[in-house]
């Protein structure tokens, strides 16, 4: 996919651009707000990565301007400001996700891919399928291979999020933010324990595992062919 990175810190930008290119994406870089806005308006990008503090025009203004023009390209905000308040401001301006610096590259990549996927949801889905695992969002039921699986409410939310991002890498932070709505670092890897519980319920008695651990990045729910 085509990605525009608007970031004034050239070293940081070089790493991001290099990492994204190596992951198979087409990447452009703009070093300030004005250039970034021009590029974004000119090219057709699948996703924009915008630093919050930029010379000439700050990141939030760039985003607001784009949104005023009717541009709906998904935007990921990068920022050194970590307060929940700053996050809310960024999302209000029109950002779709907010990542605090410093971040792991795997985290950035996972979030970018999640954003692009979210962009094409088709119609509202009430039923999610991965291989023979099925989640009914209305009835709140989970079945695999026709057998009903009982999940706790939080386990259901966790599975729902994984199913919505099936095939993608989902990081622990993404899970903590989206399933528990916490933005702090819980030290112990609590997420791993929840995942292994969920895994015991959906994978244990079946031949093909669906919930995979991606080393150094997070988890991915997908059917391995």
């Amino acid at each position, binding site marked *: 996919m085509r990605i525009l990175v608007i970031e004034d810190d050239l070293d940081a930008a070089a790493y991001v651009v290099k990492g994204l290119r190596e992951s198979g994406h087409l990447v452009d870089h703009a070093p300030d707000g004005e250039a970034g806005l021009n590029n974004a308006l000119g090219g057709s990008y699948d996703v924009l990565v915008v630093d919050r503090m930029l010379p000439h025009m700050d990141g939030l203004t760039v985003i607001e301007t784009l949104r005023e023009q009717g541009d709906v390209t998904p935007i990921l905000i990068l920022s050194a400001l*970590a*307060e*929940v*308040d700053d996050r809310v401001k960024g999302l209000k301006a029109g950002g779709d996700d907010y990542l605090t610096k*410093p971040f*792991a590259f795997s985290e950035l990549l996972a979030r970018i891919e999640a954003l692009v996927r979210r962009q094409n949801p088709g119609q509202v889905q009430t039923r999610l399928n991965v291989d023979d695992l099925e989640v009914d969002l209305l009835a709140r039921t989970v079945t695999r291979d026709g057998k009903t699986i009982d999940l706790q409410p*939080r386990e259901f939310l966790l599975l729902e999020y994984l199913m919505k991002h099936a095939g993608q890498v989902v990081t622990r932070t993404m899970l903590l933010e989206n399933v*528990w709505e*916490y*933005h*702090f*670092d*819980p*030290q*112990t890897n*609590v997420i791993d*324990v*929840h995942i*292994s*519980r969920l895994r015991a319920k959906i994978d244990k008695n079946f031949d093909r595992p669906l919930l995979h651990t991606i080393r*150094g990045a997070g988890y991915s729910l997908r059917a391995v062919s």
Partner: protein
Amino acid sequence: MLFLNLIRSTTFRVAMVYLGVFSGSAFLVLIWIYWSTAGFMARQTDETLNAEITGLAEQYRQRQINGLLPIVANRSERRDGSIYIVMTPTGRRLAGNLSSWPATSEVEPGALFDFKYDAVTPEGTQTHNARGRFFVLEGGFLLLVGRDVQERLETQNRIISSLYWGLGLTIVIGLIGAIVISRNMVARIDAFNRTSRDIMGGDLSRRVPLSGTGDEMDQLGQNLNAMLDKIERLMVGMREVTDNIAHDLRSPLNRIRSRVEVTLMKENEGDAYREALQETVREADELLSTFNALLAIARAEAGAARETMKEISISSVVRDTAELYEPVAEEKGQTFEVDIDELPPIWGNREMVAQAVANLIDNAIKYSPEGGAISVSLKPGLKGALEGRDSIRLTVKDTGPGIPAADRDRVRNRFVRLELSRSKPGSGLGLSLVSAVAQLHDARLTFSDNEPENQVPGLRVTMIFPAYDSKTA
């Protein structure tokens, strides 16, 4: 120099203004005293004169000059301070106790005038002041009626001089008082100034001297001293933190550096490189999470987070967090008991309270042995637990080693790790964050033994939050 300081001092100026106002009112009072004493005497003299004149005029009207003379002669004998003289138109004295017509400048008949005469006293003849009136009777006779006012004038002079003295003394004593009071104040304020200069010079241990009287200056001094104590504690704390940061961050940075250096010595060994880089990323992540924890503590302590506070349901925050950690405890074979009442909200920052609760539960799980018991409860606080406010009590209990009573204050500081916990992973920042969050939320944080009476080992942490009251907020 001191004198200049004195005059410039506020106390002196205030004292001077007060002295002015006081002297002004004293002056008015003295005028009043003068008017009602000396003035009264003068008016009395004039009234006596008028009464006498009215009497004599009556006599004269009835019996003419021949009737008047014996009366004047008779009255002149009395020597009661009255003065009379009757003269023919030609200037011959007919009667009276005045030897001759007083030497006066031109005086209108009928008007009051002052004059001097030779009075016969037991001590001999003296010149006395007198006051009187004269009339031209029918036939050209002249009548003068007067009164000796010597004594009255002397009394009046004494009154005036004592009034002057009184006013003078008032001003002098007031001035001395102003100087003494303001010197006293200036001296005390100078002491304050000297102390603050010393402190600005770097000696943070200096304190403002107190007089021990408990007056306003003493209270100001006490407040300043309390403030200085707090600043000193903060400074010491900051120095410790800086030392600790330097120490605790130097070791991992050093490890990273030497690993990279050693790896670089080897010639292009792909696997070793990869392994070293992975290890480096892991350690960098640890460093970052330490920094994040420090930042979170700093934010909670700075109090700027107060602006982000709102009404939050403590019950659901604690329930969600407990639920997040429950599987971790079960994984360790620990029993995890949760007893949460549905309670009124508190005024707070959800994220921070959740992180504090998470840290407490995380510690409980980490330090309790396998098969241990952890309990999280949220109950209404006891009446009076928080000075007359309704409160909510969060208790987290574990069956770990606990915290020795002597260390219970110390563990709130950053980077403090007890010997017991050295073997466990951790940054020594968890409880500092809890402590900072407690302070931010006006909550009381206490560490105690789990259940010493039942021989249950472990730590019991209680956090007593004030319940949010929309009426007081």
